[in-house]
C-alpha cells in the first residue's frame, strides 16, 4: 500500500509536469498553426502530430536514441548534468509530454480557430496588444477546447506506458508509474494487485474528468451567468 502511494505520487508528478509542459507548448504550436502563415507550417504540424501516428513503443525507442549517449539531447544533458536522462523520471515526463502533445495541440487549434476574429479586432481597437488580446479574449473564448485539451493531455500522460517503459524503464520508486506497475503485476501473475492499481487509475481518471467538468461549468458560468431563457 505504501508503495502504491508512491507509485501514484510519481505518476501524478510525471503527468502534472508533462501537462505543465504541453500546455504552453501546445498553445504556442496551436496558435502558430491557426493564426500564422509560414514556411514549414505543415512540417511543424506533422512533427507534433507524429507521436499519435506511431505506436508509443516506437516513440519510446526514438526518444531513447535522442536522450541516449549518442542523441543530441543525451549529449547535451550529459554535458549539463553529467548523465543522460534515460531511465530517469524526466525521461518519463518527456515521453508523456510527447505522446500527449498531439491531443493537446489538436484540441487547442480547433478551439482557437473557432474564436470570432471580430472580437479580437475589437479588443485591439480598445488598446489591447496582441498578447493581451490572446490572453484576455481568445483564450477565454476558446475555453471549452482548452479545458478539453488539458484533460485529454493529462489523462493520456497518466496512462502513458509504451514509450515510458522504453525510455525511462520500470524502476520501482524512480520511474515506475501506475501503468508500468500494472504491467509488472500482470506479468508476475499478481492479478488482484494489478486490478487494484487499475482501479486507482480509474479513480484518478474520474477525478480528472470531474475537475474538467467543474472547470467547464465554472468557466461557462463566469462567461454567461445564466443561459436560461436566452434566445
Amino acid at each position, binding site marked *: 500500500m505504501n508503495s502504491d502511494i508512491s507509485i501514484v505520487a510519481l505518476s501524478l508528478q510525471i503527468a502534472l509536469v508533462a501537462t505543465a509542459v504541453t500546455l504552453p507548448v501546445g498553445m504556442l504550436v496551436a496558435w502558430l498553426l491557426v493564426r500564422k502563415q509560414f514556411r514549414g507550417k505543415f512540417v511543424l504540424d506533422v512533427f507534433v502530430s507524429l507521436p499519435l501516428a506511431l505506436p508509443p513503443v516506437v516513440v519510446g525507442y526514438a526518444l*531513447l536514441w535522442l536522450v541516449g549517449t549518442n542523441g543530441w539531447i543525451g549529449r547535451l544533458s550529459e554535458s549539463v548534468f553529467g548523465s543522460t536522462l534515460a531511465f530517469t523520471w524526466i525521461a518519463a515526463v518527456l515521453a508523456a509530454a510527447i505522446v500527449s502533445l498531439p491531443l493537446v495541440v489538436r484540441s487547442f487549434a480547433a478551439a482557437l480557430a473557432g474564436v470570432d476574429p471580430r472580437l479580437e479586432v475589437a479588443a485591439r481597437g480598445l488598446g489591447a496588444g496582441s498578447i493581451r488580446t490572446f490572453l484576455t479574449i481568445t483564450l477565454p473564448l476558446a475555453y471549452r477546447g482548452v479545458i478539453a485539451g488539458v484533460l485529454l493531455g493529462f489523462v493520456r500522460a497518466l496512462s502513458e506506458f509504451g514509450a515510458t517503459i522504453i525510455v525511462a524503464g520500470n524502476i520501482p520508486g524512480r520511474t515506475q508509474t501506475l501503468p*508500468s506497475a500494472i504491467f509488472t503485476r500482470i506479468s508476475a*501473475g499478481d492479478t488482484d494487485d494489478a486490478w487494484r492499481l487499475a482501479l486507482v487509475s480509474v479513480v484518478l481518471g474520474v477525478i480528472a474528468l470531474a475537475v474538467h467538468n467543474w472547470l467547464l461549468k465554472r468557466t461557462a458560468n463566469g462567461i454567461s451567468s445564466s443561459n436560461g431563457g436566452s434566445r
Partner: protein
Amino acid sequence: NSGNEVPLIFAAASVSDVLTESAAIYERETGMQVEFSFGGSLTLANQIAKFGAPADGVFFVGEEPKTILGELVNPVPEGSIGLVNTLLVIGFKDAEHVGTLSDLAASDAQVVIADPALAPAGQFAKQALESAGVWQDIENDLIFAVDVRAVLAAVESGNSDYGIVYRTDAFGSDSVSIMSEIYEGYSPIIYVGRSVKLAENSASAVEFFEFLSKSPTVRDVFESAGFTIGFAGEAGT
C-alpha cells in the same frame, strides 16, 4: 569506488515479485541495495544492446535475449542460482482433457501460445511442439499472444480452449485446468543473472547475484513461487 553504488538490474517482469522480495532480504541482511527495471526479456535485451540502456546486470530467461546481448554480458559464473520452470498445457475449465501434445494437435481446437518472436515462453513452446513432431499439424490452430500472461488470460476467459504456459503461471490460477506437464523437448527454462561487462556497477550486480545463490531465505522465496532451484554447471547453462 563504483562497486559501492546501487546496481540497476534489468529483469523479466514475470519474476518481478520474487526478485523484489529477494532484494528486500538482501538489504536486510547486507545493508546493500539493488534496483530493477522490469520488462519483457526481449525488450530489455534490445534496450541494452541496441540503445545503450544503463543496465549493470540482467536477469531473464531464454536463448534469444542472450543472443541479442552476445558479448555485452559476462557468462554466468559457476554455481550461480537459476530458477527453473517447466511448461504446462492448460485448458479452459470445461475443455476436453488432452494428455499429450499429439492429442492437443489432434483436437483441432484453438491453442494459444506466446508469440515466439515476442516472448521466450513462445520459443520454448514452439521447440516442444516441434520436437513432438506436431508443429506442422497444429500451426493453423495456433494463436500467438504477446506474452505468457496473455496466453493464460485467453484461456481463463474462455476465448481459447487450450494454451501452453509456464508451470508458475498456472499455479496462480484456479480458473484453468492443467491438462499435462511437458517435461522435455525444449531448452531448459532457466532464469539467471548476468552482469553487464562495461557497466559502472557491474561488480555490485555480481555481488547481488552471489547473494541470491548463497541465501537460503531467498531460495525459499523462489521455491514457494513454484520454481525449481538449479545451479550453473548442473544443468548446462
